[in-house]
């Protein structure tokens, strides 16, 4: 007998508990995919009968909410480009150059980054943005997000770049490449998987964030989807579950699409250029 009965019982017990926990967490997700297609959806879980797209039709007629999805894209895209580019250059410099005290700089930035994008700093941020005359612009949202996310992005990327041998760029430079050529031809393609991680992480962060755009923006025409979702509450403050569910599903699609795209396009890693 390779297994004693005690081990069997223990394993069965573990499986049962794991299955129960899994079900518990799966239920809201099941609701999330069922409710949008149910004309009489409530907070309880129910199989749509009849299956309908009526909720979506109503949501699509809400121009404010549709404009908000576009605004979310603008803000997330802007923020991601800024964070991705700046973090790549900064992290590369921090990893490869010999600036005295560079690790201290990284840690201090990392420490303060959680403060900058947190609610504690909302008042100073508002004052700064206001003084800069940027209140109620996409740019304000993009800049504040970039500032908040950059240190962590730099930290992640610097670790990633540290793990990449310098001999890649060194061999390029010995072969006749300028430092800039060595960076773009050799280093950047090798770092790309790390940049993709940072980009996805930044996108998800900006896409789901509520507080910063809510405070920095005034006009309905600029609000992102995370704020516009409140247009599916009745005036009494109760959610219109059918529309909310449909909008939520639409709202989450770009993030899912991004994950799938990245997994398809970059989900592999390179190995074999370096013999260790």
């Amino acid at each position: 007998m390779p297994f004693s009965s005690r081990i069997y019982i223990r394993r069965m017990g573990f499986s049962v508990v794991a299955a129960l926990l899994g079900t518990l967490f799966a239920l809201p997700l099941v609701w999330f995919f069922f409710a949008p297609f149910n004309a009489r959806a409530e907070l309880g879980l129910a199989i749509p009968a009849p299956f309908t797209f009526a909720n979506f039709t109503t949501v699509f007629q809400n121009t404010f909410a549709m404009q908000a999805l576009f605004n979310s894209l603008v803000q997330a895209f802007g923020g991601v480009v800024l964070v991705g580019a700046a973090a790549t250059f900064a992290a590369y410099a921090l990893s490869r150059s010999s600036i005295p005290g560079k690790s201290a700089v990284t840690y201090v930035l990392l420490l303060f980054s959680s403060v900058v994008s947190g609610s504690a700093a909302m008042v100073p941020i508002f004052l700064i943005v206001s003084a800069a005359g940027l209140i109620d612009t996409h740019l304000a949202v993009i800049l504040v997000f970039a500032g908040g996310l950059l240190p962590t992005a730099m930290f992640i990327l610097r670790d990633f770049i540290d793990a990449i041998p310098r001999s890649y760029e060194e061999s390029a430079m010995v072969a006749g490449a300028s430092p800039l050529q060595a960076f773009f031809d050799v280093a950047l393609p090798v770092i790309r998987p790390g940049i993709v991680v940072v980009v996805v992480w930044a996108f998800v962060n900006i896409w789901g964030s509520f507080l910063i755009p809510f405070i920095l923006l005034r006009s309905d025409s600029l609000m992102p989807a995370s704020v516009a979702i409140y247009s599916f509450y009745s005036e009494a403050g109760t959610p219109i579950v059918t529309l909310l569910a449909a909008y939520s599903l639409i709202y989450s699609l770009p993030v899912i699409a991004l994950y799938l795209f990245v997994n398809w396009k970059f989900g592999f890693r390179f190995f074999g250029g370096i013999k260790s």
Partner: protein
Amino acid sequence: MASVEFQNVSKSFGAFNALPDISFSIADGEFVCLLGPSGCGKTTSLRMIAGLETPTSGKVLIGGRDVTYLHPKDRQISMVFQDYALYPHMNLADNIAYPLKVRGEAEDKRHARAREVADVLKIGDLMKRLPSQISGGQQQRTSLARALVYPSQVYLFDEPLSNLDAKLRLEARGFLNHLQRDMGMTAVYVTHDQAEAMALATRIAVMDKGRIVQFAPPIEIYRRPATTFVANFVGNPPMNLVPAQAAIIDGKLQLRAEGLDVTALPVSDTIARAVGAKSITLGVRPEHLRIARPDDSNVITGELFANENMGPESLVTIERKDAGRVTARIFTDDEIRVDKTVRLSFDAEHVTLFDSTGARIPAHGE
């Protein structure tokens, strides 16, 4: 091709003084190996020729031109890295042709040239593969092809064979030797493998703790090691070193140590002077030791420690009581009879003597 020269070069990393002060010159067409244990400064020296490190002081010259502060890209050199540093996102054709790409060569031209070099190295059929899709030996040849694809003043090698298995390493070593004979290239080759250095170099610089201990042709290093460090580093297995008490009796040198019986070595002036210091180290290469006949005069006696049969030869190691081991390479054609106690003997002409500082004492008649 060009010469390479170091003029009083030193290099410190923070408080660590990697190279205190080093000067040497390598003539056009020489294949020089920098040989030494890890941390001896050989790779740092190589990287300063490449321009990947900048000397703390001193000058580096390539082809008579001062390149001390010149960027690597402007030095017209090629380098093969220990980890190969193949670009993982480029196929072999693009990897090998990359130096031509940065020189502005057109794509079809540079791929044709890359193919030419690859064919010589027998990787021509793999041009569409990524580095991750080829074997270690093929990766090594790809990195070599990338170094050979463009005309270069100096070829630099940073332990290029250390990641290959033993059989491939021998094959690659033979190819490099052939290449050197074919091209007459100026090359600087860093290695900690003395056999590689012996096989490839026209001259070897043996380095220890940031200094060049001896800079000479391989045969000179083998026959007349300048110090006990060189003697102990070169040879496979390295030279046996036996510290002994010396005395000159009746015009003959006598050495005494545990298990050592040497009574009749010829004496020169230099030896006579060194004997004044009393302590002398006797050096004998394993291949110069044989199983002693009863009437042999220069004898080392010890307990048998190991007897490794390698096919054409055997490595017989004996242990002198509390005084270290001595290894002999015995050709198996000779009849080997090893008992518990083994007597090894050697001829006087194969003896190398070192004084108390570890420096070699010039032999009789030198």
